[in-house]
């Protein structure tokens, strides 16, 4: 069975739709800046979607009087674009929606908590009723009119990769005919302070794979892809999803093993599912968060697989930040277009190679390259590593 990618939708700090995202990647326009849309005293760059919640609601034709979590708004924006792009009839029973998020409605919950902490009878309930991860998923599914299988995955930063993998497997098992899969996450105080407390936020613009890299920048956004069996596709697919795998590093709750065991496991297994040799991968969209630990561990795993023939690779994290539960949703969209149009994305801010890594990422935007297969990585807390393979449809 061939699984086709037939629809794409993305919103991030560098654009409200897929074409805006690509245009920013092409012209080197990143989304980093000081936090403007949520209150924090931390002075670190973040990649915010450049609109208030009220502006997002307006763009989505929602009643601006109501309260929506930012996670739900961003998710609806990207999922709606993906569904329209694929031209699928979502009212059909066997259309599923699989979303992922790491914070859910936390942006509202932390506002609620300011009043609630001193008196449990205080705090506006509408601010906390959307706290759980499932809330944004069900809101988006309802808005889209999807009444088939709906669920939410939350495995930290690899969440959306796992959502896409589940979607593919449900098509394989003939449990669904079409599935919208990906993830959404909004920036909030909770996650920014969480990564701050782990001392892995760079106060400067992040530099994936660079010798001077000193940590990550967070971002927000959402990304979804529509998957169908290729014979059911209403339009010519962007590409095929040929490989997917999830493996666990089982080394540390938040750090990666020096050998990159989990990453090695997910990348090799995803390529095995796709039936590909290392020489057939033409581009790797790496996880590349720009923490000293992640990039070295990921590079080590890549070298274990590809030896001295490492294909072109890059991290888009310096453009859009680490968007956590949304990251592989957005990056799956970029990866699908890499296969379709031969795009290779620039790894912004890479200047000096790290001797321990011994690899240099792509630094210029390219198009029209021969890209047969793209490997895309997403790694998370809990040792959770997921890799996807996108391949040419012809």
């Amino acid at each position, binding site marked *: 069975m061939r699984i086709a990618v037939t629809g794409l939708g993305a919103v991030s700090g560098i654009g409200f739709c897929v074409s805006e995202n690509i245009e920013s990647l092409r012209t080197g326009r990143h989304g980093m800046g000081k936090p403007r849309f949520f209150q924090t005293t931390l002075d670190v760059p973040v990649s915010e979607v450049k609109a208030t919640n009220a502006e997002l609601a307006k763009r989505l034709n929602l009643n601006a009087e109501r309260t929506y979590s930012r996670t739900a708004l961003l998710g609806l924006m990207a999922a709606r674009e993906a569904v329209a792009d694929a031209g699928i009839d979502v009212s059909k029973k066997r259309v599923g929606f699989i979303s992922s998020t790491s914070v859910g409605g936390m942006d509202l919950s932390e506002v609620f908590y300011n009043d609630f*902490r001193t008196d449990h009878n205080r705090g506006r309930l509408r601010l906390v009723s959307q706290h759980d991860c499932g809330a944004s998923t069900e809101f988006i599914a309802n808005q889209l009119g999807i009444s088939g299988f709906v669920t*939410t995955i939350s495995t930290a930063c690899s969440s959306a990769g796992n959502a896409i993998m589940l979607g593919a497997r449900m098509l394989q098992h003939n449990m669904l005919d079409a599935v919208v899969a990906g993830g959404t996450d909004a920036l909030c*105080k*909770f996650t920014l302070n969480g990564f701050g*407390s*782990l001392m892995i936020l760079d106060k400067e613009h992040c530099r994936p794979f660079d010798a001077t890299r000193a940590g990550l920048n967070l971002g927000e956004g959402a990304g979804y892809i529509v998957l169908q069996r290729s014979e059911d596709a209403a339009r010519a697919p962007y590409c095929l999803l040929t490989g997917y795998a999830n493996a666990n*590093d089982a080394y540390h709750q938040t750090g990666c093993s020096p050998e990159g065991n989990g990453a090695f496991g997910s990348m090799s297994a995803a390529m095995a599912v796709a039936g590909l040799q290392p020489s057939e991968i033409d581009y790797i969209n790496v996880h590349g968060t720009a923490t000293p630990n992640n990039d070295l561990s990921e590079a080590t795993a890549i070298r274990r697989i590809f030896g001295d023939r490492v294909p072109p690779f890059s991290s888009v994290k310096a453009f859009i930040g680490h968007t956590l539960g949304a990251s592989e949703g957005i990056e799956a969209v970029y990866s699908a277009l890499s296969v379709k149009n031969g795009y290779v994305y620039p790894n912004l801010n890479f200047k000096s190679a790290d001797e321990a890594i011994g690899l240099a990422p792509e630094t210029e935007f390219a198009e029209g390259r021969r890209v047969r297969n793209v490997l895309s990585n997403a790694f998370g807390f809990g040792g*959770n590593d997921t890799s996807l393979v996108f391949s040419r449809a012809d």
Partner: protein
Amino acid sequence: MKPVYITRTCQIANDQLVMDGVEAVLDYKEIIADPALRRRMSRIVKMGVACGLKCIEELAPESIDAIITATGFGCLADTEKFIESIVANSERLLNPTPFIQSTFNTIGGQIALLRGIHSYNVTYAHRGLSFESALIDAAMQVAEGKKNVLLGAIDEITASSADIQRRLGMTREYELGEGANFFVLNATTSVKDQPAVFDIDTRSGKQTEDNLVEWIVEMADRNNIKTSDLWIIFINSLSDIKNNIKEKLGPNNNIMGYKSLIYPTFTASVLDYAINMLMGLTKMKILLVTEYQHINYSLILLGRG
């Protein structure tokens, strides 16, 4: 769907450990030996990790092909602790432990870490269908040839979440609860009459009595079973309408209601209960009809293989 055999069950609720239906001694010190690690763990993490570890204690790490967990609310105490520290310390000098543990996949990740299990590991967090989603994934894993799939569900209740749920009116019909339930699933078993899940389906959005009847018949049909040959157990608020549904379904004397404590992944504890009930039934299958907050519904068909 191919039958999925449940080769081991483990439950921790009210500080009691029950394994394969038999009460056992719950000694966290024995299960999680590292005292520093144990101290850092919040209640839900300790409960979930201990329950999962007990469930696979006799299995070699390389023989476990998947760890699939479910939690509706995640690690609430850790989440609140971290939010409180952000406010109280004005975003400065925060202890990262509650943040790290607030992640929804903490329990699945910790089980993998403590036993060195490198296989598939995923966590579902979707309200009243978190456990059902995990069960569907687990059934697919088993169908894909995976062995010893560890499936678990964990939710905790905290003072704050109880107050919020009370204010939201979620406690009017229900009594809140919490617990951890883990299961080991396999495609085959050497044990005669081993309990097995035969089918599962989920729905979101309020279901009418007619919707439920139609859905139950549809599931019975696709499994070639007459509804009159099923023990149908209506869970929680559905037990109040069981007689109406019974009339619409036609003759069936094997209909009962069951009220459990309520938390998003409570259906895992109901499944454990039904597995024990199966031991007293020779040939019949059980159909669980569950409901959570009138938004999430599931049907789970189980019997002895």
